[in-house]
Structure formats: C-alpha cells, structure tokens
C-alpha cells in the first residue's frame, strides 16, 4: 500500500513537471500567451509565498512568522544581499518565538 502511494505521488508529480516542459515545444503559443507565462509563474510564486508567510494549515500562522518575513522583505526592498534577507527573516522569527510570540 505504502509503495503504491509513493509510486502514485512520484509519477503524478513528475507528470505535472515534465508535461509543462514538453508541451512548451509542441504548443505554438502566440506572443501574448508567451508574455503572460512569466506573469502566471510570478502570480503562483507570490501566492505560494503569501500563504506560506501567513497561514499554517487552514488557520493564521501566528505573528512570529509574518513578522520575520516582513523584515526579510524590507531588507530585500532595500537591496540587501539575499543571504542577509533569508538569515534576518529566520532570525527574527526564531527570536520572537524565543520571547514567547506564537
């Protein structure tokens, strides 16, 4: 049973990944569609980042995580190096949790 779950997940996930890549060759996309694909990817990644920053399961994630993300975003906005953005976001959240913020 377990092996069936793993195989189904592995095959299904790979099918999603590879079909986009291979379809791109077969489809003769008009210019407007080709211009919209990066917009679509950006919208998906933004939605992913927003839900990961604010929610845990179906509920609010608590204040520590979004605060840390906000610190990272402000640093990124100020053109801080990427490593600093990531470390500051994690550090802020870790510190807030240490202080008892959920």
């Amino acid at each position: 049973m377990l092996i069936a779950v793993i195989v189904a997940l592995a095959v299904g996930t790979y099918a999603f990944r590879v079909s986009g890549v291979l379809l791109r060759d077969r489809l003769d996309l008009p210019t407007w569609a080709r211009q919209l694909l990066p917009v679509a990817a950006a919208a998906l990644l933004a939605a992913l980042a927003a839900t990961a920053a604010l929610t845990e399961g179906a509920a609010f994630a608590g204040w520590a995580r979004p605060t840390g993300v906000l610190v990272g975003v402000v640093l990124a906005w100020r053109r801080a190096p990427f490593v600093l953005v990531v470390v500051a976001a994690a550090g802020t959240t870790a510190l807030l949790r240490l202080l008892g913020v959920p």
Partner: protein
Amino acid sequence: MLRDVAAIGAAIVAVGASFGAVAVAAGLPVWAVIAMSLFVYAGGAQFMAVGLAAAGNPMAAVLAGLLLNARHLPFGLTLGDSLGRRLWQRLLGSHLMTDEATAFALARPAGEVRHRAFWLAGTLLFVAWNAGTVLGVLAGGVAGDPATLGLDAAFPAGLIALLLPTLRDPDTRRAALGGAALAVLTTPVLPAGLPVLLALAGPALLAVHRLRRPPAPPTAQVVEPENEAHAVRAGRQESSC
C-alpha cells in the same frame, strides 16, 4: 548566485532533516522515507502524505499531494527551454523543478544565464533535500523542529526577494498581488493547493483583457469573435490546471 542558493540550501537541509525524522516517527520504513525524497521530491506533498498515510488515508494522501503539485505544470511551461535543448536535459531537469529552483531561474534573464541558474539551484537543492532527509532518518528526534530556527519564515522571504525585481512591471505586480490576496483569503475554506492555483485567475483575466483590446502596433490583428471565445476558453483551462 552560489552563495544565494547555498543559503536556501542550508534551510532545505534542515527542513529535509525534519521530514526524515517526522516520517520515521510516523512509522514509515527507512527505505520509504528515502524513496519519497528521491522520487517524489516535493516537500509540501511529502509532509502531507506522511500525515495522511499515517492516519490511514492513502488515497487522500495521493490526491492532496497531486493537487499541491499541479502548479508545476505552469512552471514547466514558463521555464521551457531554460532547462536545455536536449531531451535528457528536459527529462532530468523536470524532476529538479521546485518552487525555489523556478524562482532562482526566473529571477535571471532568459537564455544561458537562466539555464545555468536553473541547473545550479536545481542540483544543489536536490542534494540538500536528500542529504537532509538521510540526516533526519539517522538523527531521529535530535533533528529538532525547524520552526525553532524560524526556517518557516526563511522560505517565503527568499521567494519574495527573488520575485521583487519582476514586480516592477505593473501587470505582473497587479497579477501577483491579486493572486496572493486571493490565495490567502481562500486558504481557510479550500483544500491545500487549490488557493495557490486560484492565483492564475489574475493572469487569465489579463489574457482576456489583452485580447479584447489588441495593442496598437501595426502588427495587431483584428480579434475575431471566434478567437476571443477561444481565448476565454484557454483562460479557463489555465485557471483550472
């Protein structure tokens, strides 16, 4: 670039270790935990599958995991030949396509630079996730909770930092902010994975809008009613894939 990927890679080792530890603690055999990280290679779906499979609900584990990973199809469409021109590059590269590798690649200009960014991030993060998983399996409970280190804030912050330059374009900014708001608002009521896919509504609306009002340049063609209906259909398909 290498340093940037290494920063996310370090966080991924830690989360991978937590996956290894959680999965072993949930009663999964070691081979299954390692096989999941190698062959499924999708963190969110793996955590979800372990939870649901341990709760005796394998069918839900598969469906929920696949719904969560459907977003990789539009990622693949966007990346296209950034993976490489050869078939083996596309087949192997597809497996390395994660949110982070996609974000690193799309943050670079299309062409050779993006191709190299994708493979660097893709390979390094794959090694990081699997090394982390093995560490977690070996260390068990010692691996600790990544939340204590605030790593759950590191990933969204990193993704947004990679996205910021593309948000200078007004259309992209509107679509991204609208999509993000829609996803957050629907998260409490929809199954995981679906809210993120709803973010495609923004680009889909944009597509319809652009077709209704073709741009002014001389190459602009008159939009026939037939074409428009086709575009609306395409938009719907896009938002449901």
